[in-house]
């Protein structure tokens, strides 16, 4: 059996067609786009086309609203740092407790510099409270940054509504859409979103290429100053091959967006149903009715995620976990804690994330393996006895020290 890759929210395989369009930019059209000779004369055109392909996927009004960056993280940092630099009198930032570290760590650092960070909590299903959001908006807020879709659970936030509310209050709005772009349709020109981050490697383009969408007219300060590349908004010689590759990947994503939301979703749903029906004491986390079509995050009680991944890996199946142990920290993921998932389950969460390269056959293979994996580990667990958890696990297992 060939290996099964269900870790597409971590990163994706580069599409063959993407690799094909990139190769000439390494071997033939390798000139600097700023140069005037035949090694470069097709490059500017290639980049322009890529910009339009990105524009089309996200529904931007102008192609000049697309700024190529080195990754999603750079786009996020650029957006937030630009907003506070352009509005030096505004000292507050609104975000959520479940953002990617690319936002949270930056906000932690800004907090030390004296900024007030409002980290909005989520409920047990990972949802935001829009009413309390409204109360936070004020003329003191430099920027709101709320992710479009969560990388762990796939939960989608109502960013269009939140952006409208921010706009009405005169506050800039950024969204980290790294997980959402290419998986769900979007039309930015119909929204009040001012800035949006995306990352190539989540949609079958290479790693190390990203985009910051910057709505025309949004006040902006570059992160990297230098040459005139990207109209002076992001200096540094263009990563031409990757830009062209990202363009192609966006074109393919747009062509497959229906497939993603029907066929890919069907695979996800079948896996999710199969697992929760066959295996006792497990449940799906996040907002089940507002989720990316490709993601399911399942918590298996009384066992630990890394151990599950190691057994899955041995069976040729790749997934990932919000478990503490995979990151080397002692706490389960901040997303699980934010949703108040009980500790009995938070350490045993496994995320399966699909792409258009997966098949129903693979889903069936995983369904064959999964019950055995869980049973093996539960047999080792002091919280499990026979067919079920020991009665009152926290009581039954009570170490001699507290």
């Amino acid at each position, binding site marked *: 059996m060939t290996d099964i890759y269900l870790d597409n929210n971590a990163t994706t395989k580069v599409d063959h067609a993407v690799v094909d369009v990139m190769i000439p930019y390494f071997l033939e059209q390798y000139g600097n786009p700023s140069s005037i000779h035949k090694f470069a004369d097709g490059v500017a055109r290639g980049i322009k086309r890529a910009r339009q392909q990105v524009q089309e996927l996200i529904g931007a009004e102008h192609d000049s609203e697309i700024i190529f960056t080195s990754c999603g993280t750079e786009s996020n940092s650029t957006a937030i740092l630009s907003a506070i630099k352009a509005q030096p009198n505004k000292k507050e930032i609104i975000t959520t407790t479940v953002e990617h570290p690319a936002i949270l760590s930056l906000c932690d650092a800004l907090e030390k510099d004296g900024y007030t960070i409002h980290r909005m909590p989520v409920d047990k299903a990972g949802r935001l409270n829009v009413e309390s959001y409204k109360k936070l908006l004020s003329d003191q807020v430099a920027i709101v940054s709320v992710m479009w879709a969560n990388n762990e659970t796939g939960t989608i936030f109502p960013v269009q509504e939140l952006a409208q509310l921010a706009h009405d209050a005169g506050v800039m709005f950024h969204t980290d859409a790294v997980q959402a772009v290419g998986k769900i349709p979007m039309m930015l020109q119909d929204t009040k979103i001012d800035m949006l981050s995306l990352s190539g490697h989540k949609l079958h383009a290479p790693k190390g290429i990203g985009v910051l969408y910057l709505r025309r007219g949004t006040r902006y300060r570059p992160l990297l100053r230098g040459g005139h590349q990207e109209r002076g908004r992001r200096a540094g010689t263009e990563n031409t091959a990757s830009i062209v590759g990202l363009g192609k990947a966006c074109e393919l994503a747009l062509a497959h967006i229906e497939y993603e939301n029907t066929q890919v979703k069907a695979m996800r749903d079948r896996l999710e149903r199969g697992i929760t029906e066959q295996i006792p004491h497990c449940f799906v986390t996040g907002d089940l009715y507002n989720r990316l079509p490709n993601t399911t995050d399942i918590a298996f009680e009384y*066992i*630990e995620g890394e*151990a599950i991944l190691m057994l899955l890996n041995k069976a040729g199946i790749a997934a990932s976990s919000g478990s503490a142990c*995979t990151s*080397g920290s*002692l706490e389960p993921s901040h997303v699980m804690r934010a949703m108040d998932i009980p500790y009995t389950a938070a350490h045993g969460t496994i995320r399966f994330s699909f792409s258009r390269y997966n098949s129903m056959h693979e889903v069936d293979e995983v369904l064959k393996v999964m019950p055995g994996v869980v049973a093996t580990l539960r047999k080792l667990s*002091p919280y499990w006895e026979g067919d079920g958890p020991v009665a009152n696990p*926290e009581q039954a297992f009570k170490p001699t020290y507290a």
Partner: protein
Amino acid sequence: MWDYSDKVKEHFFNPKNAGAVPDANAIGEVGSISCGDALRLTLKVDDDSEVILDAGFQTFGCGSAIASSSVLTEIIKGMTIDDALKVTNQDIADQLEGLPPEKMHCSVMGREALQAAIANYRGEEWADDHEEGALICKCFAIDAVMIEEMVWANKLRTVEDVTNFTKAGGGCASCHEDIEAILEKVLAEKGETFDPEAPAVTKKPAIAEVKGPLTNLQRIKKIEEVLESLRPALMADGGDVELVEVMGNTAYVNMTGACNGCQMAAMTIAGIQQRLMEVMGEFIKVVPASEMKKLVNIEVA
């Protein structure tokens, strides 16, 4: 994923002695479900000889927690409980051919469960004496709680102080920002402010830096002197270092005790080398004595 040794994988995929020993007379339980790590060790101890006849484990935890539990039961079966008490977490890690620094706490948990089980057998109370925080320094596997305690107890004020007391920060230096954050926090609690420019309150043992070229004898003496000054820190970890031979500017050393074979040994050697070069003002290469022969052969060839 982690770069686990084959031994860890072997014990994880085919754990030995999984499950509870049915007629156990010693039970040790450590950890809790909220920390993501819990281990129950059950032993059958022969009352006359105090030999551990059988051992079983039940573990909730990651791959290395399960492997550590499994290897622990293998190590202690057939030992007297007195000998078993001498098993250190480093022994567990060594049997597993090393654990990543982030995972050393799994071997610590194994040792604690063993202590708890033996205390239970003897009818004693067993108290856990160690609290664990987020891992700060990956080079030396030092966590936040350890650094905080040291800062409090020894009135440390700078990153250099922390390095002198805990080794944290003495390797690649990438954890210095986190160490500064801890200093900032603890000093604030004490009503002081952290000054990154402040001179260190602790001094490295004063050793006169040498000027000018050294004779070989001077060089050996100086190396001995530096090793002597580093010895307390190593011994605090249950290790030691011994100078075996000096050839040109290469010093061959033996790492003993807890440092021997531990994956931190390479890091410790790098630290010793750094210190030697600072003091001697010349390039010194520190090499484990075990590699001596090999290297000499290459030189001859």
